[in-house]
């Protein structure tokens, strides 16, 4: 799993049916200190996250299919949690 921050949402009318009924969010990966660590991408929301929320996401197909409860879902990036706090031990 990786850490990201929700930066917005994506609207698409013409899309693969797997996305019907799901919110598509623009997510930017961050490191544990909150610094941007990669390019933004689109993920399927499963935790009602909103802009500004730090989130945990899976970026792996079998995990996404398990979360979406659909063995044929062609999806890979799915939000699985909203972060309350990240505790980093001193010296790391």
């Amino acid at each position, binding site marked *: 799993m990786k850490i990201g921050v929700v930066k917005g949402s994506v609207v698409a009318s013409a899309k693969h049916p797997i996305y019907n009924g799901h919110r598509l969010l*623009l997510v930017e990966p961050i490191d544990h200190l909150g610094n941007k660590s990669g390019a933004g991408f689109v993920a399927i929301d499963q935790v009602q996250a909103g802009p500004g929320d730090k989130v945990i996401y899976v970026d792996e197909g079998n995990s996404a299919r398990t979360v979406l409860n659909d063995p044929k879902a062609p999806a890979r990036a799915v939000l699985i949690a909203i972060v309350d706090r990240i505790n980093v031990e001193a010296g790391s």
Partner: protein
Amino acid sequence: MNFGRVTGTIVCSQKLEGFDGEKLLLVQPLDENMQPKGRELVATDVVQAGPGDLVFFETGREAAIALENHWNVSDATVMAIIDAVNREDGR
């Protein structure tokens, strides 16, 4: 799923059986600011996207599962044509 811009189409008369009937698009991956990120790639298509369209695409095994016959071969598939990206971080 990653952002991309469809920059063209590719015609191939000679190809693997699994690609019959599959449209091949040239896609430039983009970052969240819609700037080019990396090299162009070739993708299959399930939403009738065309040159100029802002899209998002899936890679890996999921790209093949998205096709009608998911035993077909693909490692990149255009999954949606984007109407709007609503940024809510002041930009």
